[in-house]
């Protein structure tokens, strides 16, 4: 296994992304940027949900913490975005650990509703703590990113930056997945009692998976704040958390490639449905439901189905070992 798969994954992301960055029109480049940002968040969510099996409906709150961190540090305190980003990510990680410690004792839909409550609380606080967050008006005029003294002039250049971050994020995720830490997470998901019996500290594993997912979310949030250069509570509602989860499931649960495909598909799908006029969201919901029903293993499952003769999937979540990283 070693480094081959992670490096191939990063190379593929950069190659396909760079190619697309030259052929797509400006408006689609903007959507590509949003897809890349979502993909980073969803790869993070994959640690918590895909590997460790923790249902989180509060992922958007961590994206929001990263984004607000950058927005507040740059606009209120005049920090450089490059300095504000690591600070915002670190702060989000600490918050995730503090929140995760009590919350992760819950399982299944209890955890789902607790994280949902967390996201709703984040929204209420972000909309009402006006002196810090600007309330529902949000925070505007976040400074643009400069690389080597040059401001990133457009969507295309931002996309290159985003692709590099995504490639590194996917590579790190792939390395972690193949490592003993990744296997420990999957063991906790498949059978917590058995994992504990084999000497896995399940509490530590669950909290690390949760914190790792929050770090990825915060990175996505930082990029979002620098890309849009405006943050408001509306961008980080629990509906966004559910969208991230939907991206992961539609792409293919516990697959990094699936996370990327799902993010791109669900970001572009509403655009492709625009020809339906004002009814497009009606069809969007039906389409997502259809994907869940007819493609239970997601887009990635479609590829596997094509390669292998169909066989009956085992009823409980099957143990998937390294090939998932491919």
């Amino acid at each position, binding site marked *: 296994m070693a480094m081959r798969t992670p490096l191939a994954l990063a190379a593929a992301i950069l190659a396909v992304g760079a190619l697309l960055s030259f052929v797509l029109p400006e408006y689609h480049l903007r959507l590509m940027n949003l897809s890349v940002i979502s993909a980073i968040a969803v790869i993070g969510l994959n640690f918590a*949900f895909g590997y460790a099996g923790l*249902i989180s*409906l509060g992922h958007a709150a961590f994206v929001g913490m990263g984004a607000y961190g950058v927005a507040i540090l740059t606009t209120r305190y005049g920090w450089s975005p490059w300095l504000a980003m690591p600070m915002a990510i670190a702060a989000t990680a600490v918050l995730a650990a503090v929140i995760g410690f*009590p*919350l992760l*004792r*819950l*399982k*299944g*839909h*209890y955890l*789902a*509703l*607790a994280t*949902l*409550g*967390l996201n*709703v*609380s984040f929204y*209420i*606080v972000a*909309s*009402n703590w006006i002196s810090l967050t600007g309330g529902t008006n949000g925070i505007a005029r976040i400074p643009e990113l400069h690389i080597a003294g040059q401001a990133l002039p457009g969507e295309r250049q931002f996309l290159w930056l985003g692709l590099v971050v995504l490639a590194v994020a996917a590579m790190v995720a792939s390395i972690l997945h193949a490592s003993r830490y990744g296997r420990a997470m999957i063991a906790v998901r498949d059978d917590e009692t058995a994992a504990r019996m084999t000497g896995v500290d399940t509490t530590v594993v669950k909290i690390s998976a949760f914190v790792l997912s929050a770090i990825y979310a915060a990175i996505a949030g930082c990029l979002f704040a620098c890309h849009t250069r405006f943050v408001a509570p509306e961008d980080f509602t629990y*509906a966004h958390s*559910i969208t991230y*989860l*939907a991206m992961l*499931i539609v792409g293919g649960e516990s697959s990094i490639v699936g996370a990327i495909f799902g993010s791109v598909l669900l970001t572009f799908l509403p655009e492709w449905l625009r020809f339906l006029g*004002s*009814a497009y*969201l*009606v*069809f*969007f*919901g*039906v389409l*997502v*439901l259809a994907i*869940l*029903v007819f493609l*239970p293993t997601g887009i990635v499952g479609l590829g596997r189905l094509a390669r292998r003769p169909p066989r009956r999937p085992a009823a409980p*979540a099957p143990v998937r070992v390294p090939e998932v990283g491919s």
Partner: protein
Amino acid sequence: MADFIQLLVSGLAIGSVYALAAIGFVIVYSATGVVNFAAGQFVMVGTFAGVAMLVDAQLPAPLAYSAALAVMALFGALFFLVVYLPLRKSSVVTIIIGTVAIGITMQNAALLTFGSWPFRLPSPVEGRTLALGGAIISTHALGVVGVTAIMVAGLWLLFNKTTVGVGMRAVAQDIQAARLMGLKVNRLLALSWILAALLAGVAGLMLGPMWFADVSMGDPIALKAFAATIIGGFGSLPGAIVGGLFVGLSEVLGASYISSAYKDLISFGIMIVFLLVRPQGVFGEKIQDRG
């Protein structure tokens, strides 16, 4: 004191609506194990069924309410066929996302049909008030509490005194055993969805005159119903009632005595505290990790 009585009654009225939505959610969850994230949209559909019959079609009130509830029963059956049956074997998360997705469809279908302009749904006791201990109380609010009490009594009779209701409880308890006993499991499951839709319909018809009928009203109601079920106890009917009333009261009293901006944080804060300290809620199931 007069203020307090007024707030108390309107808190109980809003709480009754949350309680009905939460009961519908719990009935579906106990029977089918589905965590229905479209529960709030069910209430929205109920309100707009009322708008269609009372405002658009101008039917006389008794006919309009019956027609709206008939629409809701059909809607529950349709949801059973189109959403529940295809998803019934899926994981918790897939079902959550599936019901959210179909909730988006419902909300936007309502937007296409009724537009984004809010409607005013009239009440049969429109504009009437009662004087009680120096306070002026809207008859509608009292009526809401009364209707909810009758519904709850009806549900108790249904689940304890009728064959169908006992069958529904049997299915909720152990679907395999129920099937082996010769119960028509699918029919009873469909009935749970229809019952949930009817309760949401009643909730929507009563909520319409208190709020404005707005196509985006579903999500806030769903969140309150979730908070109510957690506080009362997941899967417990008395819990859903107590939780719903509690959330309604904390919202109305919290808004006027503590902070109107943070009124919703009170119920969600209490919900999170309950999850951490007593996840089974006031009346709920003992097992922490069911589902």
